[in-house]
């Protein structure tokens, strides 16, 4: 437990180093790139001084890390706003989107996967396998565009974008959420239901389930009391992985549906070469994924005695 927590701290520091090196150290001469072609040398020197680009990389990293530990993510190069404020504004729509998706995906994938695993080879199992393979393979931006074209433009059923909506608006106007959540669900349901199905199959094949059947316990009791709890452990870890792949999906979906969340903010910051904002958002998203993994490991350690020693 303590080792796992210590490792999480190590992971977070690795993440910080990675983000800093990726954005700051690779930059060459950031000032020149920021100003574009035909810049004025004096202007570049002033910008370089303002961004303190003349110091060596390690000094800059130390300063950045110290600021980070105090919760100061710097200021956006574009709007001049503190990055913390930008993130706080943009986090709400992203959280609503991800939360709504999880609320749909976890029960849906759990039920479907468990039902398919319990009746391996049945019609339900085969249909589910085919559908999940197809949905999992097609890139989510293709799915998203097709859904927009069909549902909101052709049939005019639901709004095609959530432009200008913040977290609260998304909650009060659920029709804005339907399409983005639908697209996000396609992939995550496919992947999670496969994992649950595999977990159920594994649990069905164990000795204690065979023994329970031999003792004449009713089938529903065997399934609920013995198979389901043991299929949960792998499912918890898969859910953690689904959440981290959800970040990739959210990136695409927010852009397609113009949801003003963290991902849209990140993509426009990348386009504008707004380094502090990119650093802040990738740090927050990366840390969120690492923490979700940590939580999943701790939950599994609690549920499965075998894993407790490893955690």
């Amino acid at each position, binding site marked *: 437990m303590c080792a796992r927590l210590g*490792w999480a701290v190590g992971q977070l520091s690795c993440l910080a180093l990675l983000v800093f090196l990726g954005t700051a150290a690779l*930059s060459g001469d950031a000032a020149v790139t920021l100003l574009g072609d035909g810049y004025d040398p004096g202007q570049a020197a002033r910008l370089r001084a303002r961004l303190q680009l003349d110091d060596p990389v390690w000094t800059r990293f130390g300063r950045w890390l110290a600021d980070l530990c105090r919760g100061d993510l710097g200021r956006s190069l574009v709007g001049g706003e503190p990055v913390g404020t930008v993130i706080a504004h943009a986090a709400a729509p992203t959280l609503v989107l991800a939360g709504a998706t999880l609320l749909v995906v976890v029960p849906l994938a759990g039920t479907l996967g468990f039902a398919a695993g319990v009746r391996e080879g049945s019609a339900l199992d085969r249909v589910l396998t085919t559908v999940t393979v197809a949905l999992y393979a097609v890139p989510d931006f293709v799915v998203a*565009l097709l859904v927009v074209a069909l549902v909101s433009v052709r049939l005019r059923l639901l709004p095609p974008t959530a432009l200008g909506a913040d977290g609260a608006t998304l909650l009060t106007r659920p029709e804005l959420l339907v399409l983005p959540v639908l697209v996000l669900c396609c992939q995550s349901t496919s992947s999670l239901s*496969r994992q649950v199905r595999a977990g159920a199959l594994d649990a069905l094949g164990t000795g204690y389930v065979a023994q329970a059947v031999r003792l004449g316990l009713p089938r529903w009791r065997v399934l609920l009391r013995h198979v389901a709890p043991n299929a949960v452990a792998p499912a918890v870890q898969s859910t953690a992985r689904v959440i981290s792949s959800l970040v990739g999906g959210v990136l*695409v979906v927010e852009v397609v549906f113009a949801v003003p969340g963290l991902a849209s903010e*990140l993509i426009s910051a990348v386009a504008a070469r707004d380094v502090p904002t990119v650093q802040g958002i990738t740090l927050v998203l*990366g840390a969120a994924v690492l923490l979700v993994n940590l939580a999943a490991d701790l939950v599994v350690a609690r549920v499965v005695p075998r894993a407790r020693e490893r955690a």
Partner: protein
Amino acid sequence: MTRWPSPRRLLALGMTLVPVLTAVLGPALAGLPHAPPGGPYAPSGPHHLLGTDGLGRDVLTTTLQGGRSILLLTLTATLLAYLLGGLAGLAAATGANRLVEQLLLRPLDVVVAIPALLLVSVAAVWLRGEASAMALVIAFAYAPRIARIVHAAALDAAGRGAVEAMRQQRESWACIHLGYIGRAALRPVVADLDTRIVGVLYLVASANFLGLGFGPGSPDWAVTIARNESGLLLQPWSVLAPATMIALLVVGVNLLGDDVLHRPRTARVGAPR
């Protein structure tokens, strides 16, 4: 007597070959029926079989030209990832020092946990549009996953008596590590080649769609989809043609890998990318 491949494999092969052939032969065919540039989002007609896109370019021509970048980038990045990951995994598995093993593998876990698209967007701040840089970043994002598998497989092979015997015979490092351990570890490593290729393909397409990759003028399939998104209703082909190509490629490689690499139909769908 020659055995015909199963219909399933034929279907998978066909699905993969359409986009691959388009990508390979397309650029040579693209200019043949020379089409004068038309107005933006012109419907299909005699000059433009599939109409034009938002810039008035012929959709058929851009689609023929747009496959090369995604295919080359995917193949280069996958190869690089296997090279980097393979060497790191081998070094970690066969190094004499446990500390070195931990130092090599532990940081890799962080890279595995972070969504690859985030890494690409960090790098895209400065390295946008350079194919070689993109390939390196994507390889860097995927190498740790491969290093883990290679490490596990090589650890198994390195413990065998044969390796001990070779050491005592004073065989060279390359002979033991690449010739024996590497070869023994090859099978489990290649087993999920298709998942890796699809993952990289996906990443390349998503990055290009989000504008983290090639510039907006590129004929790349994903870039053109993003460009013509607003014209989806006016001129559906401008989006549908490249989107079909990408979908065929990803689904085809998936099916083909499933069919060739995993004989008993084990569902590999849930594997994280």
